[in-house]
Structure formats: C-alpha cells, structure tokens
C-alpha cells in the first residue's frame, strides 16, 4: 500500500522535500514508516527521541497502524515548546 509522507522545518531540509510517497507493507505502523525513512535519510535519526507524528491531520501515536492512502506527517519539536518564558 502507498502512503503520503509530509515533513516540516529542519526535517524537511534533511529529506530535501516537503512530501514524498512510499510503498509500505500492509499493517505497517507509523514507527515502521519512520524507521524506513531514517534508513533512507540517516540524518533524520536525530529526531528519534523528540518526534511527533500525525495521521490524516490528527496527532497519532507511533504504534498507529497505517492504511492505504494515509497522509502521515512527521513533526520536529515545535518552536514554542521552549522552556523560556
């Protein structure tokens, strides 16, 4: 099955595109898709501990199972999360 991947900010710079389509096995999770992406773009591994994900424009867990045609977004830490007041 095929999913559409969206990436943002520095993660987009690393991937070199704002979106890309990839074929994944039936029943694959968000995490498996991410792992594939890191194989393809090793610098993305820097986000392993700080990543958020969304499926079809809603926040999703890494364990979420994907379906054909899903839009999967990988989100670096958001700008406003700084601990600075």
């Amino acid at each position, binding site marked *: 099955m095929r999913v559409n991947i*969206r990436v*943002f*900010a*520095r993660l987009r*710079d690393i991937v070199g595109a704002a979106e890309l389509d990839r074929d994944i096995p039936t029943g694959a999770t968000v995490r498996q898709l991410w792992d594939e992406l890191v194989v393809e773009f090793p610098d993305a591994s820097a986000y392993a501990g*700080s*990543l*958020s994900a*969304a499926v079809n*424009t*809603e*926040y999703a867990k890494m364990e979420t199972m994907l379906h054909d045609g899903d839009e999967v*977004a990988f*989100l*670096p*830490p*958001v*700008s*406003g*999360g*700084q*601990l600075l007041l």
Partner: protein
Amino acid sequence: MSFQRLAVTTKRLELDALIHCLSEATKNGESEGIGAVASFLGLVRERNLGHRVMKLEYEAYEPLAMHAFERITSEVVERWPATQLALHHRIGVLAIGEASVAIVTASPHRADAFAACRYAIERVKQIAPIWKREFFEGGDVWIEGATADPDDATAREDAYRRTCV
C-alpha cells in the same frame, strides 16, 4: 460570522477583528454578557538569546494546526465554560515587531478572561504544529522546542498552572 475564530494565515493579524468576532457572537443575550476581554499578541523580537534577529519565518502544518486550535478551544471551554476564544497564527516571513500570534478571550469576568488567554498561548506553544526559522547576521536556524504531544497531561497541567487559577 464573517470572520473566522480560528485561522492560520499569511495576512497581518488584526486584534480588533478578533475582538469584534467574539463580541458579535454573544449579542443574543443568552449569557451574562461579556464584561472582560483579554488578549495576547506575540511579536517578533529583535533580540533573542543575545543576538540580533533580522526576521523570522513561520511554517505550519495547517490542517493539523487548525485541529490543534480546535482542541485548545475545547480545553478552554471545558475549564472556563462562559469563556470564548479566538486565535489566529500567522505564517510566512515576518519582520521585527510583527505579530505572529493573536489570541483573544472574552468572558463575563476578568479572572476567567485572563486565565483562558494565558492558557491558550501556553497550549499553542506546546501543541501547535508550527515552526519558526530565525534569520540572523550570517545565517539561519530552525528553532526547536519541545515535542508536541496534545495528550501529555503534564504539559497541560503546566499550562494551567501558569494561569494562576
């Protein structure tokens, strides 16, 4: 309503328009009426961590940002039932002094309006999928903060704690 309460926009933010959109909505007399309007504007500062900023670029995952704003609205109404919220975030390149985010809350009483407004900006900073790139003399850098997780109860409590309720 001619004006959206929630928006991600490339246009200049107008606080008066947000205020107007809230006050219009309650002219039907169903409540005590609005006695207090609190608002917040986040502006692009010319200095950050000691260096001079030339401009900022904001990027959003727009549909998710709108869902995050809707979630924040629900959280506000849950905690402060008589309070209304309008929230606009700007994206694109912003000059020093321009507003990146505008939040307006309206409530019968001022304690709720202030608390809801403060809560909303904290939550925007925590969970809105919006990133900023800082341009300074000689380069640029994406500013990254904390991992966005709308279900993180600790983050939500932290935002609530800052409202001083």
